[in-house]
């Protein structure tokens, strides 16, 4: 990982939550920059050039979604959304608008730090020359388009391979059902979720030791799938 401390821009208007975020992020080895509204966040974003944004959706001067839209115009910076809003459609909407990840309140510190690390690593991954995903026994070479377990190349069907490569390109991030269907099968198939379920099950059968408790191909119920990065 990067030797310098990663800067994390925290946009959160609740003081108690800010206090605890600041403490836990610092303890986790990050450099938090605290802001409590959109105006200050935009200013800090330009001045401090953070590596990651942790964003609360309900802000006093606007909806956090607008902030994502605003920064997505000029930057690929990972954004993790915090929200007390519960529904899965809400989460999907956030991801659609360009958020990288979503944490529902209440969340644990460990969970937040893990997600932050994943998001930062994805940024590293995207800039990697050789573009190789490696986690324990699973290795995916994005350039060559190969998937191997225990160093042995796996035989995948064309659909399975496309799925696997797409997830690897976005490793650590949730890929939504519709996003996967459209990327692998095409835009006409975005409602055919059962294709996705069946092929995910077959991929898991080839990759996972115990498909019911996947190590790599994680399920985000009602949202999509995520390729684990740690």
């Amino acid at each position, binding site marked *: 990982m990067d030797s310098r401390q990663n800067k994390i821009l925290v946009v959160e208007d609740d003081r108690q939550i800010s206090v605890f975020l600041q403490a836990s992020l610092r303890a986790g080895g990050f450099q938090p920059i605290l802001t409590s509204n959109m105006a200050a966040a935009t200013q800090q974003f330009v001045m401090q050039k953070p590596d990651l944004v942790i964003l609360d959706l309900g802000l006093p001067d606007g909806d956090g979604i607008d902030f994502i839209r605003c920064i997505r115009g000029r930057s690929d910076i990972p954004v993790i959304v915090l929200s007390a809003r519960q529904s*899965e*459609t809400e989460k999907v909407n956030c991801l659609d608008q360009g958020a990288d990840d979503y944490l529902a309140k209440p969340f644990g510190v460990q969970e937040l730090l893990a997600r932050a690390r994943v998001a930062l690593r994805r940024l590293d991954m995207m800039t990697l020359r050789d573009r190789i995903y490696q986690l324990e026994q699973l290795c995916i070479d994005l350039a060559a388009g190969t998937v191997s377990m225990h160093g042995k190349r796996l035989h995948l069907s064309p659909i399975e391979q496309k799925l696997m490569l797409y997830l690897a390109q976005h490793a650590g991030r949730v890929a939504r059902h519709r996003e996967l269907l459209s990327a692998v099968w095409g835009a006409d198939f975005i409602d055919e979720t059962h294709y996705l*379920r069946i092929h995910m*099950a077959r991929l898991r059968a080839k990759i996972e030791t115990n498909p*019911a408790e996947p190590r790599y191909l994680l*399920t985000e119920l*009602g949202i999509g799938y995520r390729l684990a990065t740690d």
Partner: protein
Amino acid sequence: MRHIIFQLTLSIALVALVTTLGYYFDRSLGMTGIVMMHLAVSVFSAYYLRFRVAVLTSLVSVAAINYFQTAPRYTFQVSDFDSWVALTTFLLVSIVIASLVRKLRNQTAQANLASGRAAFSKQLAEHLAAEEDVLNLLQTSVDLIAEHFDQPVAIASISVPILCRSDDCEFAPESDATRWVIEHGRAIGPGTTNWQASTFWIIPFEKMPSDSPALILEVGANANEALEYLRGLVDQVSIAYLRLKSREQVRLAELHVHDQTVRNALLSSLSHDMRTPLTAILGAATTLVTQKPELSESEQERLLNAISAEAGYMRQATENILAMARLSHVSESSLALDWQSPEEIVGTLLARYRQRESAIEFRPQMHAEVLIFADAVMISQALANLLDNAFSVQPDYIPVEIGIAQANTDLAISISDRGPGFPAGWSLENIEKFARNASSSKGLGLGLAIVKTIVDLHQATLKVQPRPGGGSTVSILLSKWKAVDGLSAK
């Protein structure tokens, strides 16, 4: 036998026939026989033809007898006294008979009408008694009355111009008139004291101002006698209508009371679920803030652990409250139904519970890949509640089991524990009642109420069974599922 010309022709023809017979068989019939035949024609006319025609028939008969039979023949002169008496008596007798028959016939018609109405009224009453639904009741009444009167019928209320109508009904009654009738509780139409020129009768269900409907009948030919009868029928319909209405109100009121009871039960269960951990957290936290110097390191750690553990429990309680609040607005149509993999759903639960280091074991009993048609998040929530219940009674060292199996035509996802089992007298039907008494066992009542709601939304079945060797198995039986073993997905 209605047409007057036909009746006249018939009577003249009969008289002519009898006269001809008398003319040719004068000797053998004799005067008495011929008069008797004429009398027979008069009686026939009196019974089957109109009164005036019957009287005319008698007069023609008298003239014919006079002309052809009495001396001097072929004149209208009557020479002897006997003939005078005979002719006059004949005329009197036939007119008396005609008027008697007319009376009899009217009485018969009245009796027939009355018995027909009584029969219809009985038929209507039988139909009304059988109806359980207000709209069906009104429609049945409209159909029957329209058929009986052979006139179009409709039922209207103030808010709905036509509640229901007979098939042949094409009129659009004036809503102002209907409104007036209902608001005053008085009928309008011919024979009433209001708007006698109307071509409709509008008769209110209630004879006082109300918001009950009114019946509208187009006025037919024999209007005058029908009104009172019609009022009687409307009364009959009205009584049945009010009976159903009041029954419906009672049912709604009972439902409301039931809702209220359930809500109170859940509320008391909730406040227990919330207050207990909050008390623990507050106590531990204030102790740490105010008395930290006096506390040993291990004591401090114990308090911190308690805060963390109780907060975790409170998180679950909050999830349940939110779930319950959300579920109260969810209808079947707002579920995110799709083909879902039960293995994936169980997988996410396993991951979550493993993080809490709960002992849990997944034992699928199916080899084929299966998909269920369900809302994955909802099903996962239901299973999480069942798991929480299972863990609250499970001895620490034995894992809780999750199974997927085919049960007859359903797919069963089940959670099995080795706890004490469900209390005696417990049943799924009184989950709400149980919630009220559940304050001793954490969250059990509310959790199951959530499960039951989700299961009902999926038109699935919840089944609770004791387990051989102790404990219980709670299963969600889903009817919409498919095996995709040989499926050639694109």
